């Protein structure tokens, strides 16, 4: 009995020792901090290295590139560079840096810093997956892939401490957008050399040059940024900073919002959307936090064009015709997504391909599709081999694939299997071409049709459909070399026509971003006047212009 008792006591003490209250440092008030649901824990915070959306939400507010962007139109506005000039041939950009540009530790920020950062981002030692963002710069690609070893041959020239000249490989109309992309943010040489590898991105060492600086980084808990008094435009900033919470569970995130512990969410679970839509319909004039905003991306399926019968364009077209895009966006995704009528999202930097693909499936589509299928040797779907539609877990992929499977069965008599794979296995299968049909999504790197069209050239890294067309490749090359914007868009249009005729892909819808925005969150315009929260097409967060009201 005594022994038993002592055993109980000992285990009780052990547990009591473990328990004590959660020793969490932060109980400080969140007064005047914007509280943001940020999806998932960032991989890192080195702007030259990261590739993800959660990382860019944070970095865009901690750093500033040569140029910055208008928070709504995304047009280039002065960043670290006060002004710039572009040569006649559109191949040389000269940036004039602010004399008062500083790092958050007070050290002066010069043109040398930019040169060093760009070369670091391109260095093979850093092995940055996004190094190709710098490829418009002359010899950048050759240096990155070690075809040339001499960094002085890369088109980056420091004219003086406050003047930087970049020479491009070829004219790049969206280059001033790239100079405000996080891979081209300056990184603090004086800190990185003292704390090499990724040590410099820890809260205790990290130095940045943007409107905010890192204050806390607790793994899977939060990242806290606070205002940076060294920032040239510091006077404009109205908030104290922001918390980014990596909340992976969408239901937890929205419940946090409902309990008032978030100002913005990363997403809205599609099951909740009908509820919000009803609330909006009931009182259309009052503020509702549920917001749908456009997003530069396309949801589509890939066809493996090597795999019979998908190597037959008639089969691909028949399958394309019988997917009811409108039904999918109105009854499954629910977030105001736009049925795809082409591959490039409408109004991508002023480029809209004329509506070509059918929005819904009517008798005419079914008839044409059946005829095509019969011509391809599968009358009423007879003899059509059982192909698998591959998808990964997450979001609404499962629901979309289940309903497309039903649409093909009903409209064509074609039986398609469903196959879900874990994310990395899925990527591997698509990359190795071990699939028949696979779901996919493409978010544009920059607002320009090029990011949607140059991926389909032969051996394009993101093609993965095994489709290629020499004429298509030629048109993309022509567009890249074109100086006149109208002529350039003309080449894109011709290329996209080929893409939509040959259909190595099945576009489904143009993404939107759905999220919750607290009524307390407002924005300031250039004159500092309050206005409603407004989004932009790349869903970038510009905390510099945010303000909180009671």
């Amino acid at each position, binding site marked *: 009995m005594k022994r038993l008792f002592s055993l109980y006591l000992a285990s009780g003490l052990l547990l009591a020792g473990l328990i004590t209250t959660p020793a969490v440092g932060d109980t400080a008030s969140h007064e005047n901090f914007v509280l943001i649901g940020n999806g998932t824990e960032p991989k890192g915070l080195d702007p030259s290295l990261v590739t993800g959306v959660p990382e860019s939400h944070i970095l865009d507010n901690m750093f500033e590139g040569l140029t910055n962007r208008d928070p709504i139109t995304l047009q280039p506005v002065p960043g670290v560079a006060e002004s710039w000039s572009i040569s006649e041939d559109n191949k040389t950009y000269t940036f004039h840096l602010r004399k008062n540009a500083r790092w958050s530790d007070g050290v002066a920020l010069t043109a040398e810093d930019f040169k060093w950062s760009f070369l670091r981002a391109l260095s093979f030692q850093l092995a940055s997956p996004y190094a190709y963002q710098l490829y418009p710069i002359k010899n950048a690609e050759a240096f990155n892939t070690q075809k040339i070893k001499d960094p002085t041959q890369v088109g980056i020239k420091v004219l003086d401490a406050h003047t930087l000249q970049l020479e491009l490989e070829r004219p790049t109309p969206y280059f001033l957008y790239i100079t405000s992309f996080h891979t081209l943010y300056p990184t603090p040489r004086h800190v990185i050399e003292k704390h090499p590898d990724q040590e410099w991105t820890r809260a205790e060492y990290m130095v940045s040059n943007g409107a905010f600086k890192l204050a806390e980084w607790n793994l899977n808990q939060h990242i806290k940024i606070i205002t940076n008094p060294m920032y040239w435009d510091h006077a404009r900033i109205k908030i104290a900073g922001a918390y980014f919470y990596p909340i992976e569970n969408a239901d937890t995130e929205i419940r946090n919002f409902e309990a008032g512990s978030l100002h913005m969410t990363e997403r809205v*679970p599609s099951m909740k959307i009908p*509820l919000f839509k009803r609330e909006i319909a009931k009182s259309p004039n009052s503020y509702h936090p549920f917001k749908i905003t456009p997003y530069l991306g396309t949801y589509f399926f890939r066809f493996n064009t090597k795999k019979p019968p998908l190597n037959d364009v008639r089969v691909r077209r028949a399958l394309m015709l019988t997917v009811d895009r409108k039904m999918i966006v109105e*009854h499954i995704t629910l977030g105001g997504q736009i049925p795809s009528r082409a591959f490039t999202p409408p109004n991508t930097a002023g480029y809209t391909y004329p509506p070509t693909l059918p929005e819904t499936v009517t008798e005419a589509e079914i008839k044409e599709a059946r005829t095509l299928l019969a011509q391809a040797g599968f009358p009423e779907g007879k003899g059509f081999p059982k192909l698998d539609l591959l998808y990964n877990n997450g979001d609404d992929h*499962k629901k979309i694939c*289940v309903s497309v499977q039903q649409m093909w069965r009903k409209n064509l008599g074609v039986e398609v299997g469903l196959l879900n794979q874990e994310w990395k296995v899925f990527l591997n299968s698509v990359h190795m071409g071990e699939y028949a049909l696979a779901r996919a999504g493409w978010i544009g790197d920059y607002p320009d049709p090029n990011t949607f069209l140059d991926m389909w050239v032969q051996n394009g890294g993101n093609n993965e459909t095994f489709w290629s067309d020499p004429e298509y490749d030629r048109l993309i090359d022509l567009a890249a070399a074109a100086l006149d914007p109208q002529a350039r868009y003309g080449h894109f249009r011709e290329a996209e026509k080929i893409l939509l005729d040959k259909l190595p892909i099945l576009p489904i819808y143009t993404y939107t971003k759905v999220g919750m925005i607290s009524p307390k969150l407002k924005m300031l315009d250039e004159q500092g006047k309050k206005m409603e929260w407004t989004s932009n097409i790349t869903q970038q967060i510009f905390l510099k212009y945010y303000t909180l009201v009671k």
Partner: protein
Amino acid sequence: MTSPTHFPRDEVASIEMGRSLWQDAVQRIRGNKVAMMSLCYLVLQGSLALLAPYLTRFGYETTDLMLGATAPDWVHWFGTDDLGRDMLTRVLYGSRVSLMVGLLATFVSVVIGVTYGAVSGYAGGRVDALMMRGLEILYAMPFTFFVIILMVLFGRNIYLMFIALGAVQWLTMARIVRGQVVSLKTMEYVSAARAMGVRNRAIIFRHILPNVLSPVIIYSTLTIPGVILEEAFLSFLGLGVQEPMSSWGTLIADGVTALETFPWMILYPCITLMLTLVALNFLGDGLREALDPKSNGD
């Protein structure tokens, strides 16, 4: 009444006529009303699962996007999910996979776990130590990779799912059985049997196993719902049930996202699972009492 040097009456009896124990058990469980009712329910559940295609006029895969999620009514008794599929049909079809997974994977885990645990505990010494270290190694292996690799090597296969689930569940079972056996084998009647020259095999099967049955039955009835729910995770990894086929695990996992909006999507799969579990437990309790060599004296 008895002094520790005497054998309890039943044990003596079962040494002499091992069969009567099991015959007694059948008779005893027949007399247990609750257990018999539970058995009937489980049989009914099983036949409903088998006859599912003849019982409903909806296909488990037939979507009706225009309809969407509707609350239960006279047409759709359990309502429909957000793709407009009939929930009753999906629960019925789901019971096929789930009952099979629950019973087979648990069976696998009982067979391996009890044998392993009994041998380890009874042998003792080095063998025991070695077998227990083996168990610890298996415990530590990353399950997610195990599943991914199984799937990649052998493709999607429902039998793999039983192996994957059973292979994990037997570990704890083995620990529990071993713990019981270590304690039981020092019991007087076991030493006595050994002294009388009864063979190890006979001792394990006649004297030790009947006495570990109680925790085994309890633990396996507890394992069944665990396995049924775990199946949803395997489906997530790509092994297991594939859409549009349903299972209780995936129905509950999907339903939880509709907790506030379409509660019937989670309510009915949960209730069905719970009823099955209640029945299994009563049956398990009945079995345990029936097989318990000591319950005669009550």
